[in-house]
């Protein structure tokens, strides 16, 4: 379930918009400062996971709060302010990455279909597999890495992730399923490479 903004935050947002409508920008900024103080670390953590580069992540996080301020009148309270801010942060991060045109490893979807690797097919033990999984996660595109992080690490429900990423929950479920398969393929490839190297060492 997507959390609705608690009463205190809704009242604050209401006051900010009232000040803005009255033309008192300074008072609106002072009221809004509460949200910046409270959520700046969380939003920065979010943007760092998306754009990796620290300086860029700070810039994107700043832009997030500025944009959220300018759009406060559109905030409906269906989600918490933090979830709503994360949605803005996600879009800002994606725009930032598009401008940088980074390339990520992308496995053809055709390889993913019908792949089901059994445990006994891995040549490494669990510890090694987890290390390979970490490497594979780093190679995922940022949006897929974020999806996996929000779902498996932060345990967010799909509905909330769907709001942040502006996607359908069902489509995200299928995407998660495919990402898992993709990770398994990447691990298998890394294992095969490692075995090859050992053979010729």
């Amino acid at each position, binding site marked *: 379930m997507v959390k609705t903004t608690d009463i205190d935050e809704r009242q604050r947002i209401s006051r900010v918009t009232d000040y803005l409508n009255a033309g008192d920008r300074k008072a609106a900024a002072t009221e809004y400062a509460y949200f910046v103080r409270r959520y700046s670390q969380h939003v*920065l953590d979010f943007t760092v996971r998306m754009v990796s580069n620290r300086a860029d992540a700070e810039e994107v996080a*700043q832009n997030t709060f500025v944009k959220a301020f300018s759009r406060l009148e559109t905030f409906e309270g269906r989600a918490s302010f933090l979830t709503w801010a994360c949605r803005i942060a996600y879009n800002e991060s994606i725009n930032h990455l598009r401008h940088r045109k980074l390339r990520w490893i992308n496995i053809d979807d055709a390889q993913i279909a019908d792949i089901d690797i059994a445990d006994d097919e891995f040549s490494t033990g669990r510890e090694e597999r987890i290390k390979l999984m970490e490497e594979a996660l780093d190679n995922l595109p940022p949006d897929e890495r974020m999806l996996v992080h929000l779902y498996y690490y932060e345990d967010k429900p799909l509905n909330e992730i769907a709001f942040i990423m502006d996607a359908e929950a069902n489509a995200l479920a299928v995407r998660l399923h495919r990402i*898992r398969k993709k990770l398994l393929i990447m691990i298998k490839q890394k294992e095969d490479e490692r075995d090859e190297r050992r053979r010729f060492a």
Partner: protein
Amino acid sequence: MKETKDDDLREALRRSVEKRTVTKVPADFFDKVIGEIEAEPKTIKMWRWVAAAACIALVAGIGSAVLFFGKTAHELEMIAETPVKENVEIQEPAVVINDTTAEPAVAPEPKLEAPQPKVKPNTKPEAKPAPNPNLRMERPLYAANEPTTDDRESANSDASQKAAQTNYAENQIETDDPVFTPAMLDEFIEVLAEFQGVNKINSECSIANDSNFVETFYVFPVKEEFDVLGQFVQMVGNYSNASPGYFFNNTEQQIFFSIDDEQNGVNYFWIAERIDDSKIMIYSVHAPIDIEYESDCYQQFYDDITFTNFNTYY
């Protein structure tokens, strides 16, 4: 096996997060944000933009005037100076200016292909019959022999011709646009099953040694907070009824959905059925398109789970 992989993933994420040094919010972050917010919105000096737009319009106007008047004058010269001779073959333009004697050449009308007949799905629910546990799939009989190479080739060429006329089958996935292939519904059901901890059951009574014919069953528990049938129907709604082989129908107890994947030559068929107050079964079968088959597996499995302790499958 699935739990192991999920645990590996969670553990990998946890270690990855731990290793990453926490990026602390810089000391001036707050001041920068508030400073930017407090600053008055920049007034756009309109006159500069208007002047720039005017310059551009002027340059564009002069350029197009030069091009247009220059060309028109040149064309007029050509028409005036080039008499039409009977022995000289000239290519008549589509429209002849200032020549009222010659009939204007008319470009041939493009050939319109006969509209392809669309599959008319019977989406109206039939008059609600009483639930019939003896219902069989109404599909033609499965051919005992495998299709010959010639048959396959002709089937493939037919399929490739048909593919050009379909909606999703002609979409080559070159962009990030989400195209719903039939296989995605199977994936979605698999995801639903994972979330509910339901195992996939491969039918043992499928036609022996025929990997082209795949039957799968899932048995979901009925839960108030999780509407399996609703999720299934919602996903089905992503497919256009103009898709090849599209068929959708439902009764009180059952939902039928079928669609063809002409790129891979496979027909997909699903039945989602509420067995009783505690179980919902989703059955899927893939088979080559246009191959006739009949399966008793569905009925056998239905009978099994109707009279068996649910936990055997859960």
